């Protein structure tokens, strides 16, 4: 279909949104423009803080009280409506014409009203339908979004629904008035990959059924590939490039888009650094001159620092805002093309010496129970694995499967109810003498998920990094400590001058690097990294992954890497264990696992993980893992070795079946 | 003729603790009891004893046995004003005393009569000892049964009651008006038990009124007893009291006509100055209560202890206290009004010749003579210092430096040198604190800061616990009511042994004088000896009387001198005969009536 032929139903022009914040003015959206065509799904991608949410919120007057749309125009069906309407006028647009779904389904519903009431009220409000009819419509909507037994569910409260179900309810509410446009603001970020796939599917179906246009906001390029007809890339409050999904993924023009795609770990080659984007996203308080991305772009031209580029047209549907497309930049781009994409550096391999030495860490039949009121909840159930010195061992699984708990148990910051943990031939999950504990603590360190939460904001970076040195008395003279600290800073790519700053003066990626420096300065041998990149912006994930890989080689580290994102895991790990509801279901060499995933849960997980390629994603069907499908009546499951080094939790019968199904199956990527 | 109102309206503050006639504490309680229950004798408007439930009485030659003939056909009434089956009999008076004599019943004021009625105190102590678990060779029941033989009260017949006293008491009639000698019906007492007096139906009435309404801490109403023996004299139909806790509103209530009379603080008087209300303010009569200062000879403060035994020091302190200025706290306009420099009150006791006790020659140098003298005080102080100090003139003889613990009211160091530290203890009401501040200032200014340093100790919770029980004072300000018409009422309480001031002094001379005075039955002789003893006490500076009690600014609608008069007993609280006029009594009217009344009384006093 020709895109130009489609009807344009919405357009935003030169929108500028500012916020008053504690006396300063912050420009969140800087002259962003956007068109939306009938029946399409437009994905807006961009990292955190780039203004995606603010931009789209301004379409329906939902800016926070301290924000205002300074200039720009909005038009729906060719009819312009000013962005600064009275609350009353917005009511005609919201819900009825443009609906929105937020990121967190846990907080989007009023906890004290039934789900049914909350859907019904939209219908009665907008169409003045009588209650009974509205109720029927609401039940119908619940059925439509795939909620079983909608009549019963209608009467229930939000807390009785799971996250995915709640997001379905939210979507049902949003589409209750059959809006023209549905804005989905990262509707799946808070959900598991497997659930995410289902929600994406649902949105696709509903779009077709209702003939809506969808604006889909995300920072996950994989998701984009899955849902989007067209993609707009946002950076520092501007749309810097937009075009059809294929055009963006295959023919990106803006250096930021290009770099972003290159840095995806899915594209990474084991044993080589990822393509990383340097630096960190700009601070919106400051005036941004020229191309906002220029300071981070090693190939930036002088003009990028000077003038803001205009939007250049690449094709009928593809536009990019970069000077590289200017006619005069031809010589420069040609030169760049000749250079080609520079290959990244190879990593020094530190593959462990296989099997000979005893494992560095050995977890045997670990069980951890939590008390929830009077019930006990088994977060980790009979988990065993070994980690050998020098390897990267990954633990994957959906949220709540107990990965973090395993990590914490190893770190000795959580109790263990049964099982043993051995480290370097000593059992550690028992009361240790002070010096033993100190030795263990020094040898095993942790890297945390959320860089915002893992640094103490009230201490200087110097203290934060020195903390371990003080506690383990790793220096003789203070000068020695200072030297160690500076070296740690340098090793994570930060300047020693930053030592006197406080953590809040750093961006997320920098903070994560400080966290890494803090752990590594005490020279541990095992590092537990609990989702160290999942809270980071897409543009800086690669930095951190590279850093972790490089440090591992340099310092002969062993990693226990916890993640829920298979794409990263595949790139980084030597061996992978898959966890489901507190149990290990599969464990194998990374490549072996991807080549031949056996357990249906592993397979579902792999299927669900979105791949940044529209062609693959477009007609992907997602298999849902159904734990009830196992037939354990005759024989209970056991930890079986399917192939050498490849373990799976199954009974013999089903294992045989799985081996048949997966025979010769290639990896999805 | 002027028409009079028939309702008396008043207020009360604090809680009415009980209507048990024997355990009353506060003056307001007397007000209630007096109108509910009659005793043997009452007083007329001039304060002279007249028959009440006793129609007549006689005493033995030595005034130690008194026999009262009761009025017949008087019945107890209940809380609805109905006559009960119970007649008032002689046995009721015996029951009353029996009740009082039982330590379990904790009659207040027991001390007033414990020594008067023969055998009473021994009986009390016997029961108390048994309660304490001491072995007295008998059970409590047996001991109780001994009452009739051992205690000096007897029902000779149904309407004759006889009191046998421990000694000669020519003034026993003023005892006969006391709450402790009120009658009670034993049968009723047995029936209500512990509840006696705790509710309006937990009491029987034989007085002018019965309690017709009693809302705890809010409202109390008395209605006229239709079966009262002296019904004609009851001018008022109802007496009512309302709970008011704040002084400010009471004046306002009077102005709005919500109360019949009120007292005013000097500030309130100032606030109505210039308004019509000013005309109604008069100073009420002084009472028989006297305020005095005294020392604590058993103090733990060694400096004060040493100084106190020096008579010059005591005199110096007492001479430096300016009573006129102190009473200005209450009455800034006419402070002299309240001063009194004798221990016993004037205008209360007259010898058969009509001579006032305080006019006896021994008291001449003191009555009406303000002893305050700045110069003399200073001179006395210097004298005292000379004999108290070592040659260096600052070190006190025989006094070691030490820490004096008078917690919770004071805690300080003494150095054994001048100035002498002296703890003045007082309560924490506003006026008491003002007074204390003044006394401190006076002593330090007039005697010199180099000689004396007054430490103020204010008791905030319980004076008995904070000060008296622990002996936490050097100097304090004390007051006594006067309970019956004889100097012994106060003098007996001042002897070394009795030591009512808790002063721990030894005054054998005084003791001897009092003992001698007590032995006289002739009034003139008694008065002469007592007045000499009193003069000795004042001269030796053991006590310093300085102010009268009572006497406050008042406004009232009650026509003055229509109620029973007198200084003692319950009668003066009776509302019998009171006339209440529409408009408040003006000061002028009050003055005129007062003069007329006094003239009349003087006239009556002349009568044989």
């Amino acid at each position, binding site marked *: 279909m020709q895109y130009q032929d489609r009807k344009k139903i919405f357009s935003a022009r030169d929108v500028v949104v500012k916020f008053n914040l504690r*006396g300063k003015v912050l420009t969140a959206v800087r002259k962003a423009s956007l068109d939306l065509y009938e029946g399409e799904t437009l994905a807006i991608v961009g990292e955190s803080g780039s203004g995606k949410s603010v931009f789209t919120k301004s379409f329906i007057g939902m800016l926070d009280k301290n924000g205002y749309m300074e200039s720009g125009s909005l038009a729906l069906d060719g009819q312009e409506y000013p962005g600064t309407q009275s609350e009353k006028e917005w009511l005609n647009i919201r819900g009825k014409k443009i609906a929105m779904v937020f990121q967190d389904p846990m907080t989007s519903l009023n906890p004290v009203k039934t789900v049914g009431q909350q859907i019904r009220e939209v219908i009665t409000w907008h169409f003045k339908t009588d209650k009974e009819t509205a109720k029927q419509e609401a039940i119908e909507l619940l059925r439509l979004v795939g909620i079983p037994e909608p009549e019963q569910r209608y009467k229930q409260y939000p807390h009785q629904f799971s996250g995915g179900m709640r997001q379905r309810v939210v979507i049902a509410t949003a589409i209750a008035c059959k809006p023209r446009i549905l804005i989905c603001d990262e509707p799946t970020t808070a959900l598991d990959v497997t659930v995410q796939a289902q929600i994406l599917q649902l949105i696709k179906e509903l779009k077709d059924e209702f003939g809506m246009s969808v604006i889909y906001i995300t920072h996950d390029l994989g998701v984009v590939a899955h849902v989007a007809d067209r993609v707009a890339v946002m950076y520092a409050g501007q749309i810097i490039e937009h075009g059809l999904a294929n055009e963006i993924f295959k023919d990106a023009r803006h250096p930021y888009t290009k770099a972003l795609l290159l840095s995806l770990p899915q594209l990474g080659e084991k044993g080589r650094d990822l393509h990383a984007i*340097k630096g960190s996203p700009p601070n919106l308080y400051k005036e941004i001159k020229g191309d906002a991305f220029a300071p981070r772009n090693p190939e930036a031209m002088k003009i990028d620092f*000077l*003038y803001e580029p205009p939007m250049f047209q690449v094709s009928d549907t593809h536009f990019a805002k970069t000077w590289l497309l200017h006619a005069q930049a031809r010589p420069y781009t040609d030169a760049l093309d000749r250079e080609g994409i520079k290959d990244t550096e190879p990593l020094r391999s530190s593959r462990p010496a296989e099997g000979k030495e005893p494992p560095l860490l050995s977890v045997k039949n670990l069980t951890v129970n939590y008390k929830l009121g009077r019930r006990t909840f088994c977060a980790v159930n009979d988990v065993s694995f070994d980690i050998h010195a020098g390897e990267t061992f990954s633990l994957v699984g959906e949220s709540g499967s107990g990965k973090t708990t395993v990590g914490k148990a190893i770190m000795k910051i959580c109790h263990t109810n049964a099982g043993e943990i051995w480290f370097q031939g000593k059992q550690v999950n028992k009361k240790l003498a002070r010096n033993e504990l100190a030795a263990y*603590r020094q040898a*095993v360190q942790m890297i945390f998920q959320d860089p915002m939460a893992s640094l*103490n904001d009230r201490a200087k970076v110097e203290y934060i990094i020195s903390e371990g040195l*003080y506690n383990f008395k790793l220096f003789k003279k203070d000068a020695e400590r200072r030297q160690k600290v500076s070296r740690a800073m340098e090793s994570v790519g930060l300047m020693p001058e930053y030592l006197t700053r406080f953590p809040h003066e750093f961006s997320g990626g920098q903070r994560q690097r400080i966290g890494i420096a803090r752990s590594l300065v005490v020279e541990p041998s095992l590092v537990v990294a609990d989702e160290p990149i999942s809270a980071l912006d897409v543009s800086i994930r690669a930095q951190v992954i590279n850093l972790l890989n490089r440090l591992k080689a340099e310092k002969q580290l062993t990693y226990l890497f916890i993640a829920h994102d298979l794409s990263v895991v595949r790139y980084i790990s030597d061996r992978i264990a898959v966890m489901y509801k507190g149990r290990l279901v599969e464990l194998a060499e990374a490549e072996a696992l991807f080549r031949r995933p056996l357990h249906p849960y592993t397979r579902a997980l792999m299927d669900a993980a979105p791949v940044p390629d529209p062609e693959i994603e477009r007609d992907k069907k997602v298999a849902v893992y159904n734990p009830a499908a196992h037939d354990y009546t005759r024989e209970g499951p056991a930890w079986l070795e399917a192939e050498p080094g490849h373990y799976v939790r199954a009974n013999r019968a089903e294992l045989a079946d799985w081996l048949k199904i997966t025979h010769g199956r290639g990896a999805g990527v | 003729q002027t028409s009079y109102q028939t309702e008396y309206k008043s207020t009360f503050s604090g809680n009415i603790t009980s209507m048990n006639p024997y355990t009353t504490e506060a003056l307001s309680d007397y007000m209630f009891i007096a109108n509910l229950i009659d005793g043997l004798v009452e007083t007329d408007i001039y304060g002279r004893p007249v028959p009440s439930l006793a129609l007549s009485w006689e005493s033995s030659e030595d005034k130690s046995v008194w026999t009262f003939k009761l009025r017949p056909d008087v019945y107890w009434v209940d809380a609805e004003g109905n006559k009960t089956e119970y007649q008032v009999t002689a046995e009721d008076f015996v029951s009353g005393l029996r009740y009082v004599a039982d330590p379990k019943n904790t009659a207040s004021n027991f001390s007033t009569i414990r020594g008067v009625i023969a055998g009473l105190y021994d009986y009390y102590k016997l029961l108390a000892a048994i309660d304490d678990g001491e072995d007295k060779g008998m059970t409590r029941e047996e001991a109780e049964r001994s009452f009739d033989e051992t205690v000096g009260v007897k029902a000779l017949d149904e309407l004759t009651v006889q009191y046998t006293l421990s000694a000669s008491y020519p003034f026993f009639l003023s005892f006969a008006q006391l709450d402790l000698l009120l009658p009670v019906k034993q049968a009723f007492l047995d029936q209500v038990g512990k509840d006696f007096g705790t509710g309006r139906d937990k009491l029987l009435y034989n007085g002018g009124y019965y309690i017709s309404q009693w809302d705890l801490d809010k409202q109390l109403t008395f209605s006229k007893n239709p079966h009262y023996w002296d019904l004609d004299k009851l001018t008022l139909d109802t007496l009512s009291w309302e709970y008011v806790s704040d002084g400010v509103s009471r004046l306002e209530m009077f102005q709005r006509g919500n109360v019949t009379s009120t007292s005013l603080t000097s500030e309130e008087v100032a606030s109505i100055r210039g308004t019509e209300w000013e005309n109604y303010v008069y100073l009420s009569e002084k009472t028989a209560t006297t305020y005095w200062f005294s020392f604590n000879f058993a103090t733990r403060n060694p400096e004060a202890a040493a100084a106190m035994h020096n008579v010059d020091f005591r005199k110096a302190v007492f001479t430096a206290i300016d009573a006129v200025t102190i009473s200005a706290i209450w009455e800034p306009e006419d402070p002299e009004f309240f001063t009194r420099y004798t221990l016993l009150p004037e205008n209360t006791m007259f010898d058969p010749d009509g001579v006032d006790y305080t006019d006896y020659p021994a008291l001449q140098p003191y009555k009406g003579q303000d002893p305050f003298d700045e110069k003399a005080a200073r001179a006395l102080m210097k004298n005292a210092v000379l004999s108290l100090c070592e040659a260096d003139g600052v070190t006190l003889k025989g006094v070691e430096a030490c820490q004096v613990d008078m917690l*919770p009211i004071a805690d300080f160091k003494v150095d054994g040198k001048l100035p002498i530290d002296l703890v003045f203890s007082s309560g924490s009401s506003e006026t008491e604190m003002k007074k204390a501040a*003044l006394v401190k200032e006076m002593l330090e200014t007039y005697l010199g800061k180099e000689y004396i340093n007054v430490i103020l100790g204010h008791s905030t919770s319980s004076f008995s616990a904070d000060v008296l029980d622990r002996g936490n004072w050097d100097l304090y300000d004390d007051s006594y009511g006067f309970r019956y018409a004889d100097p012994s009422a106060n003098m007996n309480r001042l002897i070394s042994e009795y030591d009512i001031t808790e002063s721990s002094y030894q005054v054998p001379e005084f003791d001897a004088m009092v003992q001698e005075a007590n032995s006289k039955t002739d009034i003139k002789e008694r008065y002469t000896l007592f007045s000499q003893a009193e003069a000795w006490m004042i001269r030796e500076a053991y006590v310093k009387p300085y102010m009268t009690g009572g006497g406050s600014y008042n406004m009232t609608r009650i026509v003055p001198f229509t109620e029973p008069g007198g200084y003692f007993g319950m009668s003066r609280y009776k509302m019998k005969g009171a006339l209440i006029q529409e408009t408040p009594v003006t000061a002028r009217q009050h003055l005129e009536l007062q003069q007329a009344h006094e003239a009349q009384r003087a006239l009556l006093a002349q009568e044989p």
Partner: protein
Amino acid sequence: MDNYSLQSPPFEPGKDAVLPQELFTRAEFSEQAGEDTGFTNYSYWRSTLNTFFKSHLVKVIVVLVALLVLFTLLFPVLTDKDPYQVALSARKWNLPPSAAHPFGTDGVGRDIWARVWHGTRTSLILAVAVAVVEVGIGVIIGAVWGFYRKLDTLMFAIYNTLTNVPSTIYLVLIAYIMKPSVFTIMIALVATGWISEARWFRSRILALREADYNIASICLMTPIRRIISRNVVPHLMSLVIMSAALTIPASIGSEVFLSYIGVGLPPDLCTLGNLVNQGRSAFLVYPYQMIIPTLILCFITISFYVIGNKFADASDPRNHI
């Protein structure tokens, strides 16, 4: 990064199509600059103070309070007027304000000007001491309580008992055991107040305790003591200041109440509570005896209340981005 001068005009597409070719060459790349784009020189305290002092009301109040505090603290040095100096002549009692006695004299001729400032001084010292001690104890105990779950049973028993026993009981008892004094009343107020503060801080600390940076410190074997002092308490500093500021009017209020019921304070001591209550009885005739201390008292309480609340607003991390 500023290789190019700022004077150059902004580019407007279309206006002039040809740009200097020189601009289309590679610019020097500095990793440092890339890192620095994200730099904010935000500081929590600076930002808090900036917002706090943004309001003119706050500026005025802070200045006035500072002056008042300074004046009352220095008062005994500035003047030799004795607040306890009684006049032995009744004519000098209850004088209205005049040159000699700016606020008049009271019922026994004491100078109200001197009394009021001494009273303010005592009350302020008392209130500040109570605030500091109470909040101090609250933070420390709250921190320990928050970190040691085992203390819960004990501490909740103490909490329930203390909050359910009317504080008057302690006050009366303390008054029996100790001499009524500023110190006594401080002990009494602290004795009843610390537990609520501790509980409040405990709940804050529970939220902070599970923070990743504390877990990181545990992994690095930082002793609990140092975790509390370096990680936790600094985060509570703004709350500490706020609750101290809010405790001040509360303590002054308690002092007025306690002197109303006549417990704890030496009744002849100059404090605002005593002055107000003494002035109350004379209010109808000599209104100034009550109004002057009342005004000062209200000024202090309102000021600290406003300061506390504004500070709470300014320091609330939710208002910081």
